[in-house]
């Protein structure tokens, strides 16, 4: 594959991008995507949130999981950074703490693929029976 160096090179790849997007959208509606937010404030960045975010973007694509990875500010769990919030379709978001690449891999394999909960969940948004 030739390397992309100029905007003209990028333009040449437009059709390729388009067909990838169409392939992905076939059969899946956008609401059914996995949504991940990486906390990206000073605390998160200093403890490696950038590496984790790059890992997530790359690995989710490699493993053909339709997901959007975005960033958010400090969620107030500076001691547990890097933290990420994962929202599976039609489910409440779950926040994980102390996420390094290894943990991110576990979250993808267990939680995102199978809905299995893994260690490191921060109880941020839970409802008790009283306020339900």
């Amino acid at each position, binding site marked *: 594959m030739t390397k992309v160096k100029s905007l003209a090179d*990028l333009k040449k790849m*437009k059709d390729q991008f388009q067909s*990838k997007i169409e392939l992905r959208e076939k059969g899946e509606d956008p609401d059914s995507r996995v949504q991940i937010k990486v906390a990206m*404030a000073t605390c998160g*960045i*200093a403890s490696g949130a950038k590496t984790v975010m790059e890992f997530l973007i790359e690995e989710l694509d490699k493993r053909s999981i339709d997901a959007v*990875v975005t960033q958010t500010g*400090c969620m107030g769990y500076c001691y547990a950074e890097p933290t990420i919030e994962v929202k599976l379709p039609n489910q409440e978001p779950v926040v994980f703490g102390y996420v390094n690449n290894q943990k991110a891999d576990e979250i993808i394999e267990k939680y995102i693929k199978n809905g299995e909960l893994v260690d490191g969940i921060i109880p941020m948004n839970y409802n008790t029976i009283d306020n339900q």
Partner: protein
Amino acid sequence: MKELALHILDIAQNSIVAGATLIRIGIAEDMQRDVLSMTIEDNGKGMPSDMVERVMSPYTTSRTTRKVGMGLPLLHDACLAANGMLTIESVENEGTKVLATIQLSHIDRQPLGDITGVIVLLFSANPNIDFVYSHVRNQNSYIFDTREVKELLEGIPLNTPEVIKSIREMIALNLDEL
């Protein structure tokens, strides 16, 4: 925070929170004058002048989750450690400009780090904000503008994984040649 690129990622978060729609990031390496300068300029909501005066203090923050804000103080420290300085200009409702200058050859200057990764991360995680990144090294320069790319790709989102990959390659190749 061990790389200047990470500081830029961090300071740009302030611009995002300030509601900026356009963020300009500039890096200039001037070997002759022995200066590395970095600017982060946004069109966000800006700050009143008393806030600008207090902003270098770690006990100043606009956030509500806790009482400290370390972003600017850490960058300030990184500048001072390498014979440099940090200045902030801000006009309410117009925007803020952060300018850091550092002695390029100083032994305590932090390495620039993965600036390509930072730029890619910023535009892919913030699809509604435009970024202009310019990098000058001595006489050579490279400019990357998401508005140009968006126009070129006619509606294909920049945060599509394949697009991210290609743009990363494009920026890295151009920086290598500077």
